[in-house]
């Protein structure tokens, strides 16, 4: 339970590879079980659904796409639904290949590539600093390969359209290094006949301009509280959860702040913990680590001393050891502090230092320094 939220990305990835099991509906999280599989089943933001539909009408000239939006807003779901509408349900027949790459310095790299007959999917953060090599080798290999025109045979399913391209989904495209993005530029243009890129990212700021200018940008907003609650009602109905008071669903939706995935996970664990029956008094389950961070924030404000800093350090190490990414810690901590502080000057100072240390966190490579630095700084600021 502890780790289910921050690991949901990891879980998702594992589950993505297990689509088959999901399709049969056995042993999967509700998040995956009730993930819309076609464009028609998508719920929120009809504007976007309409856009995707008009793209899928004429799949021959599908542009490169760049989905951006907050976590859990449904980027991946929409992207897969789009592919489904173009290629048919074959896109959900996934398999994993292990590919080997050799860096110029002769180091061997192994990378898991998830692929279906129509697309393949890579996650750059799996390969760390060597993502450029992978982009160059893997994508050029795919790009230079002409798709054999076998769709005419199975034309019934895809509407007889022969699509000669393969789609490449790049998850977390914002974590691609500059080099790798630069490597993508010409590949995108040159082989646009054989390959289409669909990139998913949370923040567009770290995408280089040439990539942005080559893609159709698709903004994926998070569902509103109402939309989240509606989705919960729907799932609850199918899973036979008794909801005595709909207000609890709104509470869940609000606490998750537009992250539908988190909302569904919370909903599922709450339902399971309370024998499938939710009352308005049912306690909201929060991830342990969020509670830990909240407590830490309170301690920072109450006891501003060296000994308190030492205690915080222990907590931080504990969080990091549980694989909570430092960037998540600093964000949660900053917003927790912000909620607890009432002096305007202090608020401004907290946000300012959060922004400074967040940047340092990205540039440096030992998170504990920056997290501690942030805490120490906040203590000083609050002390005046």
């Amino acid at each position, binding site marked *: 339970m502890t780790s289910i939220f921050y690991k949901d990305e990891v879980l998702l990835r594992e589950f993505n590879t297990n689509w088959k099991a999901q399709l049969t509906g056995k042993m999967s999280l509700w998040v995956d079980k009730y993930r819309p599989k076609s464009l028609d089943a998508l719920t929120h933001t009809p504007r976007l659904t309409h856009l995707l539909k008009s793209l899928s009408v004429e799949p021959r000239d599908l542009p490169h796409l760049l989905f951006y939006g907050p976590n859990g807003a449904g980027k991946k779901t929409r992207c897969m639904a789009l592919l489904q509408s173009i290629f048919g349900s074959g896109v959900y027949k996934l398999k994993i290949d292990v590919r080997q790459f050799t860096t110029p310095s002769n180091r061997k790299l192994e990378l898991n590539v998830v692929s279906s007959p129509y697309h393949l999917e890579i996650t750059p953060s799996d390969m760390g600093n060597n993502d450029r090599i992978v982009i160059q080798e893997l994508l050029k290999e795919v790009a230079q390969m002409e798709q054999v025109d076998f769709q005419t045979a199975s034309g019934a399913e895809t509407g007889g359209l022969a699509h000669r391209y393969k789609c490449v989904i790049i998850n977390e495209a914002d974590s691609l290094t500059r080099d790798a993005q630069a490597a993508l530029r010409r590949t995108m243009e040159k082989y646009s006949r054989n390959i289409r890129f669909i990139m998913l990212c949370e923040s567009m700021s770290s995408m280089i301009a040439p990539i942005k200018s080559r893609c159709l940008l698709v903004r994926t907003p*998070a569902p509103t509280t109402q939309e989240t609650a509606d989705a919960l009602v729907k799932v609850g109905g199918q899973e036979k959860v008794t909801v005595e008071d709909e207000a609890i669903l709104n509470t869940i939706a609000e606490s998750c702040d537009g992250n539908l995935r988190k909302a569904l996970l919370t909903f599922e664990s709450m339902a399971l913990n309370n024998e499938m029956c939710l009352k308005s008094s049912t306690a909201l389950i929060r991830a342990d680590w969020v509670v830990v961070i909240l407590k830490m924030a309170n301690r920072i404000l109450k006891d501003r001393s060296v000994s308190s800093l030492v205690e915080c350090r222990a907590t931080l190490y504990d969080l990091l050891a549980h694989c909570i990414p430092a960037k998540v810690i600093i964000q949660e901590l900053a917003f927790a502090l912000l909620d607890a502080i009432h002096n305007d000057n202090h608020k401004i100072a907290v946000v300012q230092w959060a922004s400074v240390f967040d940047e340092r966190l990205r540039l440096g490579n030992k998170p504990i320094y920056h997290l501690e630095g942030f805490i120490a700084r906040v203590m000083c600021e609050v002390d005046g």
Partner: protein
Amino acid sequence: MSSEGFFAKRQKLSQPENHGDDSKPWVEKYRPKKLEDVTAQDHAVNVLKKTLQSANLPHMLFYGPPGTGKTSTILALTKELYGPALMKSRVLELNASDERGIAIVRDKIKSFARLTVSKPSQNDREKYPCPPYKIIILDEADSMTADAQSALRRTMENYSNVTRFCLICNYVTRIIDPLASRCSKFRFKPLDSSNALSRVQYVAKEERLQYDEHVLEKILDVSQGDLRRAIMLLQSTSKIVKHLDPPQITALTVDELAGTVPTELLNELVAKIATANLETIKINVREMIKSGWSGASVVNQLHHYYINSDQYSTAFKNKASWLIFDADSKLTNGSNEHIQLLNLAMKLADLYRKGL
């Protein structure tokens, strides 16, 4: 040997051009085929046209922002110099998607550079100038390592009797000085609106698009001199409206696809900042992040707003610019959009509080 693989690739690619026009992005379809078609880069084009007559060509360094026609220019030039048949053996194009470490410079580039020039066929000689040198195009040269660049230095000089280099980059500062001084530099400036407009109009006419009156201007405004982005945007919008009745492109569709924040939302944020109430600012920023607006474009448009507005004093604009610059640099370093945006908004509000 290594260059052989390259040619094989080229051939495979040049073949689909005949029948695959419909699935091609317009940026490729309307890439200028002749030097004359290159829009608005008169300086570079004039110089290059002279080389077409005199058959002498210096090493070249093209630099300028994306979408201004650097790659198009050199490709058009080589096409006019050699014609399609000879191009395969005379031109080597390498870009950032090819491995370009020091090893490649030493092997692939050097071995291509020192080849003697092949003899053009009778047919080619009549139609094209076919000057007696080869051209190596290093696209996106600013992503080459400094080591690889310095390995190029002697190669460029040694084989200058048979080979010319053309380096293309966005940032001329990333090219090491010794290389830059060996090349004649051409700066490609962002397209001015009238030239870009005529090009976009041409594309729209060719594709028989229907559009509202000021849509093309709007597209160019959004793409800020990047013609590729403008044409890309035009194609995407046309695709969206294709199945509507009538297929009319409106300013709204453009806004939606370009990822720019609508003016109303931006004005709301500015108004909230002006009240200097931190709680409401916090809520507003969170809403913006939740609806997925990109932090970079919010910052960009805030900048646009504050600098162009008349109601602020110079001192305020100065301070605001500093804050925006700071936020932008942090965002580019990949830090959290929510925190950065909130920081920017609160700092701006702080300026109001201090009564500037």
